[in-house]
């Protein structure tokens, strides 16, 4: 009996040893990486990763956190459609999407479960920028590629995909200054969900330009939670108190911001905001009256690029640690019906959904028209 215990103990020990021996994770290599038009490194300082090549097809999971707003639903539909697309489909053996809600323990659990199930890659929107150390350690140990996108992590140990949120803020500020032609005046800033890195970075980028030496803007800040209803309410409140603004920067729920201005009979002023189709329709309808709008977009199609990046990494290609996706921008001069906005569609979706350099070819209306059953 005792010897049997000893044997099983030894077996277990050797099992653990072997798992330590296979400890891998990505190697840090020098660039350039594969397909640089799609997988553009964030900056010159971005390091490059290379995982051991694995034979395909792969098992890939998308672990979403919160579900229930348009953006997330569009993201999930995009993920499903992209996994079915020729060129991608052949590389995927199994594809799963789960949403864990705003519970970090559940999200960590889901990711670890997929690692245990032997999945090759996990694409995720992290519910918090911190707290994934254990998962990263396990993923490296099991040679699993983890790709956070959108709400990314404060670490450089995983490959991540995002648009430059700070640049969105800077871009918005420059737009307002150029369109109004002034370096002073009253500006309304409608912020996003508090405590979120995206909200923080867009705000910082915006302030960086607005508060640069030589500028003298008076900025009123309200919190709109990236939600049309909330954004409309706080904008109405701000208009009631301040009366007049020379320009508006809204992080999201942009159509609500415009609606509040229309309701208050506020004159149209230069404005920059998110990529909602409704907002782009408003710009197209009213730019002649002064709503000189710019619409940047955090695209739900980031998920498709993340899936593509995961596959590329599994194929053994050299990948940048932080992948920068160009910000899709449209303004009143470049808006084109049926191309980057759709005047005949009333459902509020996020217009930018195509990224041709990455082979993401379907438009937002195509995605939103697809039912879950069709995509499966």
């Amino acid at each position, binding site marked *: 009996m*005792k010897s049997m*215990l*000893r044997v*099983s*103990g030894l077996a*277990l*020990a050797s099992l*653990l040893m072997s798992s330590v021996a296979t400890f891998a994770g990505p190697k840090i290599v020098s660039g350039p990486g594969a397909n640089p038009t799609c997988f553009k490194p964030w900056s010159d300082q971005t390091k490059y990763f290379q995982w051991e090549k694995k034979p395909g097809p792969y098992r890939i*999971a*998308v672990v*979403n956190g*919160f*579900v229930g707003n348009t953006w997330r*639903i569009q993201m*999930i539909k995009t993920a*499903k459609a992209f996994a079915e697309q020729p060129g991608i489909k052949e590389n995927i053996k199994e594809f*799963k*999407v*789960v*949403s*864990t*809600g*705003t*519970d*970090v*323990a*559940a999200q*960590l*659990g*889901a990711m*670890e*479960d*997929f690692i*245990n*199930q*032997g999945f090759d890659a996990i694409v995720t929107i992290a*519910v*918090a*920028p*911190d*707290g*994934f*150390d*254990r998962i990263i*350690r396990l993923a490296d140990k099991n040679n699993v590629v983890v790709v956070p996108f959108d709400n990314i992590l*404060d670490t450089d140990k995983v490959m991540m995909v995002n648009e430059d949120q700070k640049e969105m803020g800077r871009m918005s500020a420059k737009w307002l200054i150029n369109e109004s032609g002034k370096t002073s005046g009253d500006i309304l800033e409608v912020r996003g969900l508090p*405590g979120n*890195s995206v909200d*923080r970075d867009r705000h910082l980028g915006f302030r960086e330009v607005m508060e640069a030496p030589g500028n003298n803007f008076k900025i009123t800040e309200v919190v709109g939670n990236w939600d049309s209803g909330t954004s409309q309410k706080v904008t109405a409140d701000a208009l009631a108190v301040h009366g007049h603004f020379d320009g508006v920067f809204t992080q999201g729920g942009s159509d609500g911001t415009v609606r509040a201005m229309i309701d208050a009979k506020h004159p149209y002023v230069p404005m920059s905001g998110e990529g909602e189709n409704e907002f782009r329709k408003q710009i197209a309808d009213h730019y002649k009256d002064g709503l000189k709008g710019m619409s940047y977009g955090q695209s739900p199609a980031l998920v498709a690029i993340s899936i593509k990046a995961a596959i590329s990494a599994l194929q053994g290609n050299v990948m940048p640690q932080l992948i920068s996706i160009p910000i899709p921008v449209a303004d009143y001069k470049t808006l084109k019906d049926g191309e980057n906005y759709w005047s005949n569609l009333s459902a509020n979706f996020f217009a930018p959904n195509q990224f041709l350099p990455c082979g993401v070819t379907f438009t937002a209306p195509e995605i939103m028209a697809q039912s*879950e*059953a069709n995509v*499966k």
Partner: protein
Amino acid sequence: MANSTLSEPAMSSASMTGVPSTGLVPRRSFGGDLLIRVRQNIGLATAIGLFCVVYIFYHLAHPKGFSSAVFVQNADEVFTLAMVAMAQTLPVLAAGLDLSVGALMTMVGCIASYLLSGAATPIEFTFGGTHHVLAVLPGGGVGIAIGVVVCLLAGTLAGFLNGCVVVFGRIQPIIATLATGAIYIGIALFLRPTPGGKIDDDLNWALTNSLQDLASTVHIFDDGNASWFAPFAPIPVPFILIVLIALLVWVPFRRSVTGRSVYAIGSAEGAAYMSGLHIDRAKLAAFTLAGFFAGCGGLFLAIQTSSGNADIPQAGTYTLNSIAAVVIGGTSLLGGTGSAIGSIFGALILRVISFFFRIFDIAPLLQPLFEGIILLAAVSIGALRVLRVKNTLELFR
């Protein structure tokens, strides 16, 4: 009525712990005794049965079912919710609701993210323009031990505060804890306006893995390779912690006069008062212990995530899920019957439902619908007793 409700929890206490009860229940043959105990704890028995069925099914369907890695992952995921559910059980037993458990958990987690880094940490703050250093927390094991104690004390103290507001302020628990919960979230936000902090790597690794990893991290039992240790090595550490907390904290409390008074308050507060029980003391104890359990949850979540995060939606999710877990675990929201052990199983069932989405191919946007249906079914099983009731009056117990 007071009599019957008073003696019922006293009997179920014995059945839960498996310790033969003394005095209150006449001794019977083992089989008959067991049957009666099961009948008296039908809620708990249903929860355990349901859990076993779905959990075994999960492991059978999982490619690596019944392996240590899967057990470890499951235990990590369920621990915090189980603790928060245990915390919720106590106010519910006393016919109240605690809306602050999620906030309390979050607050303790944020405190932990400062105290458990494993390095020497000065406790400092700036007030009125001047900088004060209260104390310096030593590094290493001693510092971590002090940090853990401070976190648990903070949780307990916050629970005691809840109890004070309810008992001395004579405010309904649901409203009192709504207010105190906002205070705790406020403190958490003050401590961690943005997520961050640091937890000792070894502490994180040792507590969120199997006993083998714990032993090899702290270098005991021959780094976990001692031959006698082998059978225990694959057991997840969080599982051991839950069992220890249940056996060393909950069971003794449950068997004490104060613990039984909590049940008595839940069934008939007036009758309990007339019977000479210390109502105030029992309520205070219930909320204080709830604070301790929620504190344990927050501490573990911080260790698990190596950070503190004053996440308001998450705090709300945990509060709501704790109530669901309590109900699934067979505790009546009217108070007086149930147990914290049942709530652990309630939390387990709640988690296992979502485990299935990772194994089976269910359309992602339909998952919340399925989760809701299964949850409704699980809660309804507990309501089946209505069908067996012979006298409608019994429904009002």
